[in-house]
């Protein structure tokens, strides 16, 4: 038996008018303006008030920047860069710059991620200073640094250099920097005295170079201490746990400046009489390292807490010793997780090194103060303090914001900080 299937579909042959474009007030620039600036009466008023305020801020700023007296900053550019470092030996800081550029290039090519972001920033800076006529030799060095960075990137991206070697390169680069800048090794306490160039006393180091050095040394030396403190704070042994908690909370509870002054005046007291007094730089670095270690420990602890318990249990099940499970299972995961936090801490430390100017180190801010005091600018109407401090603020801003930008890009790539 068959049933006739009759079509039940109905097609509207009465075509409606062709699709119309959305009204201009809803899309495009006008729609955007309406949605973001003039969506309601209140919003419109807010926009207008903000626009007026912005107009005064921008015009005031433009007028000030164009009318400001930038000559002191320009003429003291060497002082801002490296402090009182002898001109005849400028090739030594230049060598450090080249070494760091090459390492950055290799790391950016090999590891990518945040290293590539930072490498791009460094390349942009090198390019900028290769173009600005700061001095033929300095420009040449910047260009060479840029070249090394690019070559390093190419090599790193193609040649599979073992990560371990590269990491070793970074570790070695730190003492090498000190040797290069100092012109040799001079440790009377150990009886070591070797030089390849005239010694450059650390009190001649200064400017941005010293600022960088303080921050890098602070974070690098505090890293092992901070990791140990973080592990100690999670230890089941009460003595070690409470020692670590006490240290971390004590240091985090007091301002850096008290530690810096303490390092300046009390560090020599703690050493045996025969050892003499360590240099100001060493004292400041000790204080900064001890300070930074407490904050680093808290960051690393955050990473350790984020590791699921199953990872510990799995490592135990595999029969790994406590040390091996930390080394192969726990720390690699925890430290990867806290890279953005450590970059953030580095930025903070980078800004905090400005406090070293209060204890007699000639870093960026101290150079600024010295430039303001230079006799040739004393007659300037209005003084040159604003120009100098704005310049220093811009230098700090470029580095801090650049690093935080690089780190934020990494965070969004790793998917941190995303909720819904």
């Amino acid at each position, binding site marked *: 038996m068959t049933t006739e299937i009759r079509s039940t579909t109905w097609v509207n042959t009465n075509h409606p008018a062709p699709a119309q474009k959305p009204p201009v007030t809803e899309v495009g620039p006008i729609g955007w303006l309406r949605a973001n600036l003039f969506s309601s009466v209140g919003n419109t008023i807010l926009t207008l008030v*903000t626009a007026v305020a912005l107009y005064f801020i921008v015009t005031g700023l433009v007028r000030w920047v164009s009318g400001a007296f930038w000559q002191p900053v320009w003429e003291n550019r060497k002082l801002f860069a490296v402090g009182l470092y002898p001109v005849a030996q400028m090739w030594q800081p230049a060598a450090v710059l080249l070494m760091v550029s090459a390492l950055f290039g290799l790391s950016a090519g090999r590891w990518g991620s945040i290293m590539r972001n930072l490498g791009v920033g460094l390349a942009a800076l090198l390019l900028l200073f290769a173009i600005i006529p700061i001095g033929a030799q300095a420009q040449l060095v910047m260009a060479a640094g840029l070249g090394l960075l690019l070559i390093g990137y190419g090599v790193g991206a193609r040649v599979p250099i073992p990560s371990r070697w590269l990491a070793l390169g970074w570790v070695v680069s730190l003492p090498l920097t000190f040797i290069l800048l100092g012109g040799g090794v001079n440790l009377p306490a150990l009886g070591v005295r070797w030089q390849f160039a005239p010694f450059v006393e650390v009190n001649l180091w200064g400017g941005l170079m010293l600022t960088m050095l303080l921050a890098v040394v602070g974070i690098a030396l505090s890293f092992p201490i901070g990791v140990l403190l973080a592990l100690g704070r999670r230890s089941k042994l009460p003595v070690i746990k409470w020692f670590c908690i006490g240290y971390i909370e004590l240091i985090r509870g007091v301002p850096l400046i*008290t530690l810096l002054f303490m390092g300046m005046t009390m560090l020599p007291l703690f050493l045996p009489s025969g050892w003499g007094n360590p240099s100001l730089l060493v004292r400041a670095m000790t204080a900064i390292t001890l300070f930074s270690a407490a904050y680093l420990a808290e960051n690393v602890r955050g990473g350790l807490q984020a590791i699921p318990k199953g990872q510990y249990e799995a490592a135990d099940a595999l029969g790994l010793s406590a040390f091996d499970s930390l080394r192969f299972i726990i720390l690699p995961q925890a430290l990867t997780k806290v890279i953005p936090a450590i970059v953030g801490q580095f930025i903070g430390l980078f800004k905090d090194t400005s406090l070293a100017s209060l204890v007699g180190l000639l870093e960026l801010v101290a150079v600024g103060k010295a430039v303001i005091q230079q006799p040739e600018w004393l007659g300037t109407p209005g003084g040159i303090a604003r120009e100098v401090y704005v310049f220093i603020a811009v230098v700090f801003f470029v580095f801090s914001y650049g690093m935080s930008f690089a780190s934020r890009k990494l965070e969004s790539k790793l998917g941190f900080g995303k909720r819904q």
Partner: protein
Amino acid sequence: MASSTFPTSRPPFFRDTRVIAVVLQLIFLIALALTGWFLYSNMVARLAASNTAAGGALSWAFLNQTAGFGISEGPAFRPDESYGRAFLVGVANTLRVGVVGIVLATLLGLFAGIARVSTNWLLSRLAAVYVEIFRSTPLLVQLLFWYVGVIAALPGIQEATELGNLGYLTNRGIHLTWIFVTETGRIWLAWLLAGFVLGIAASWLRRRHLERNGLTGSAALPGILVFLALAVIGYFAADMTASMPEATAYELRRGDRGTLFEDVNRNGVYEPGVDRTLAYVPIKLFDREGRVVATGLTEGDGTFRFINLPAEAVRLEWETPAPLAVSEPQLQGFNFRGGLSLTPEFAALLIALVVYTGAFIAEIVRAGISAVNKGQWEASRALGLNTGQTLRLIVLPQALRVIIPPLTSQYLNLVKNSSLAIAVGYPDLFNVSRTIVNQTGAEVQVILMVMGTYLSFSLITSLFMNWYNKRIALVER
């Protein structure tokens, strides 16, 4: 059949984890003690070799010695007072800039943080620029910029920039018109305290009533109303009943300046420390012919001074002041008198701390608001609430839970950062302590005192904020 080799005896003691734990801790303690002893003995040896005023010994006797230096602002301090009191004045100055800074930074941060998530593109961009600029530059540079680049560049006293009736900006400080609690205001303050207590009680009763009867409504409102009512009634009551002390007397020097005080021992002479000065009392000065030559208010320390009087004053009359008095700064000779005076150091430090910390707080507020699920906004919209109501009733209460912990650490940072006062010469805790060290050589003791003070600030703030955090935390079933 293979026999089982399962060990039945306990492992040897050197592999027993309990033993290892104890031994490890013992070794750690011994190492710690040895290091401590090494450092301590070095320190004692070096101190004995050096020739400081503290005599090399770790003695606390210096606290009672005469300081011999003055402190330019904060609670009155004379050079003949002790080092111990100088330290306390420093602590008070740190608290002064810390408390005012925290209040202002919270307001600025809240405003900028909400502006940052505003739907208004221009406003949110402007707030973002503010946050990024001030977060990415060192506080010390900002502080020096405000101090040397802005405040020192203001016009001198004679050409002061006038802010309408609000005050004057000069390179010697900022002078603001301010409302002060006067002599008779003490009674009003008692009313305010009573209003506060009764207000809390009223809102507690209201809350209990609401909860018992399952009603909805604001528990805070009755409390606020009770407080406001008592404040207003108290103001008029205090104004009507108040009188000046019976033994009010004045001292008039050189025909134009002097002190108004309560003559506690009734000997007719002003004796600092014994007699009580009377603040913000309206006064009239008369000359020999009985003509009024000047009118004004006494200052916070009970003194008054008038410049260029038409005739020498010989007599003074006072009136009973209202509980609150408005005092405007006035140029008297080479400085401003009256109103609220902020020294350039305090102003620079306060501005720097507020603007810097405000940027961090703004970022925390933004993060807190964006942490609230988008669905909450949409649900609130669906219920017909407007943006303001959504923010106030739905979003902020939830965001607060995310905001409080990092906010606490920003408050602590602000107090710790106030130690940068040493860069501009504001006599805070740390700055005063350096002066004490330079004069006495009591490095170790003073460092211990400074660290102990900052640590107790941290402890008190975190205890309070933890309590508050617990109160607003999500109550889970």
